[in-house]
C-alpha cells in the first residue's frame, strides 16, 4: 500500500476527531478575527434601521431546532434591533416541530431584557398548519387564522392586536427561516400585499435568496452564522454568532486542506497506476 493509498483510506473517525478539535480549540483560545460586513447585511441593517420608531413589525420563527445555531442569533439580533427602536413586534412560526416553542422562549427572554409588556409591545401568535394558507389568510384577517395567541389568549384581549388587522397594518416583515417558507413570504406576501421584507436564512438557503435580493423583493439578507455575526457586529453586540467565527475559520481551513490532500492523493494515485501500467 502506497502512502497515497494509505492517506485515501484513512478511517473517517480521524477526520471526525480533527473536525472536533478544530471547532473546540478556538473556544478555548479565542483569536477574535475581524468580521467584514457584506453589502447584503448592511442593506438589511439599513432597512430595519430606517423604520420609524414604534412601527409594527412581523418577525417569523420559521425554523426547526436543528438549525438554531445559525438562525437563533438572527432572531435575537433582530429583536435587539427592533426593541431598541421601540418597534411593536408580532411573531409567529410556520414550523410545526419546535418553531412555536423557540418563538416563545426567545421572544420572552429578549422582551424581558428590554422591559417590554406582552400584549402591548409584542405578541406571539404561535403556529397554524399549512403555511401557504396561513400567509395568504393573514392578508384578509389575522384573527381569522389566529383567533387566539400562542397560549390561547383571545386576540381581542391583546391591546396591540386591536391595531393590527392584516398586512396593511404591518410596516415590515423580518423573516428568519431555514426552509422554503422564505420563498413563499416573497412570492405571496411581498408580491401580492406589497409588504417590504428582509430575510435571515441558513447558509444552505442563502445562495438561492440572492436572486430575491437582486430583484429587490428582499431588502437584505443574512446568510448563515456569518451573516448573523455581521448583523450582531453592526448592532454593536458581539454575541453568539461573532463568538463562533473563529471556529468557523479554523474548521473551514481544515476542510479546504482535507479537499487539497484528497485531490493530491487522487492525482498521485492515478499517476502511480499509470506508471505501473507503463
Amino acid at each position: 500500500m502506497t502512502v497515497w493509498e494509505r492517506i485515501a483510506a484513512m478511517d473517517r473517525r480521524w477526520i471526525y476527531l480533527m473536525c472536533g478539535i478544530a471547532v473546540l480549540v478556538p473556544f478555548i483560545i479565542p483569536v477574535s478575527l475581524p468580521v467584514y460586513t457584506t453589502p447584503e447585511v448592511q442593506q438589511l441593517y439599513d432597512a430595519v434601521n430606517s423604520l420609524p420608531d414604534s412601527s409594527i413589525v412581523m418577525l417569523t420563527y420559521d425554523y426547526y431546532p436543528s438549525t438554531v445555531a445559525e438562525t437563533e442569533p438572527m432572531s435575537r439580533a433582530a429583536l435587539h434591533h427592533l426593541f431598541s427602536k421601540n418597534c411593536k413586534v408580532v411573531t409567529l412560526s410556520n414550523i410545526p416541530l419546535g418553531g412555536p416553542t423557540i418563538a416563545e422562549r426567545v421572544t420572552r427572554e429578549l422582551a424581558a431584557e428590554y422591559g417590554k409588556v406582552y400584549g402591548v409591545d409584542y405578541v406571539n401568535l404561535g403556529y397554524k398548519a399549512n403555511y401557504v394558507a396561513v400567509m395568504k389568510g393573514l392578508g384578509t384577517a389575522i384573527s381569522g387564522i389566529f383567533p387566539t395567541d400562542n397560549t390561547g389568549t383571545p386576540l381581542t384581549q391583546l391591546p396591540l392586536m386591536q391595531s393590527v388587522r392584516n398586512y396593511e397594518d404591518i410596516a415590515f416583515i423580518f423573516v428568519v427561516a431555514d426552509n422554503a417558507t422564505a420563498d413563499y413570504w416573497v412570492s405571496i406576501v411581498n408580491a401580492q400585499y406589497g409588504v417590504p421584507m428582509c430575510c435571515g436564512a441558513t447558509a444552505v438557503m442563502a445562495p438561492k435568496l440572492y436572486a430575491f435580493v437582486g430583484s429587490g423583493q428582499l431588502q437584505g439578507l443574512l446568510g448563515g452564522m456569518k451573516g448573523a455575526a455581521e448583523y450582531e457586529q453592526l448592532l454593536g453586540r458581539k454575541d453568539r454568532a461573532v463568538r463562533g467565527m473563529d471556529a468557523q475559520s479554523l474548521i473551514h481551513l481544515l476542510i479546504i486542506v482535507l479537499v487539497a490532500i484528497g485531490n493530491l492523493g487522487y492525482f498521485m494515485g492515478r499517476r502511480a497506476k499509470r506508471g505501473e501500467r507503463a
Partner: protein
Amino acid sequence: MRRTAPVITAFVTGVVVTISFFFNEQTTFIGQIQSGILIWVTIIFGMSLALGMVSITRVNFNKVKRRQEGWPYSLLVIISVFVMAIPSALPVSWSPLFGRNEGSIYYWLWTRISEPMMATMFAMLAFYIASAAYRAFRARSTESTLLLLTAVVVMLSRIPMGEWFLRLFHPSLPDWINIYIMNGFNLSVQRGIIIGAALGAASMSLRIILGIERTYMGKG
C-alpha cells in the same frame, strides 16, 4: 364517486382561490369565501399533525406486543409519546404543569431534551460533510474542477481568516467574489432555476385543479 368527489372538491376550492386573486379579499363575496376556505385548510391540515403520533404509537406497540428485536426501545418511544402528549392536553387551570406554556411539562421536555438532541443530530452533518469532501470532492473533469475551485474560493471569502487572506492579494478580492460569483453567476443560475420551477409548479397546480393530475389520491 371515490375519485369524482375529490376532483370536484379540488376544482371548486382551486377555482375560488385563484379567482379571488383578482378581487378585493375583504369586501367581495368571493374574497370572503376564499378567506373561509383558507381557515378550513389550516384546520384540516392541522388535524394531520396527530397522524404521526397515531402512526408511531401503532408501529411501536406492535413491536412490543410481538417482542421483536429492540422492543424495549419501542416501549421507550411509546412512553415518551404519552409523557409529552397527555400533560399538554390537560387544562392549564388544573396545574401550570399542563398545557404548552412556559413552565409546563411539555415546554420543559421540549426545550431541555428535544431541542438539544435535534440540534446535535444535525450538527453531526458537519463531520459527514468534511469526510465526504475529503473522499469524494475530486477535480475529475473541467466541470468538477470549476465546482471545486468555486467552493474553495467562496468558503475562503465567507470566513474571517479567509477573507483576511484574500485581501492580501487585492483589498477588493472578497468584494469581487461577492459581486461576480454570488450576485452574478450564482444569482443568474438560481434565477433560472426559480423561473423554471415556478412555471412547473404553476402548470402542475393547473393540472390538479382541472383534475388531470390525480396522483395525490394514491391507488384504489
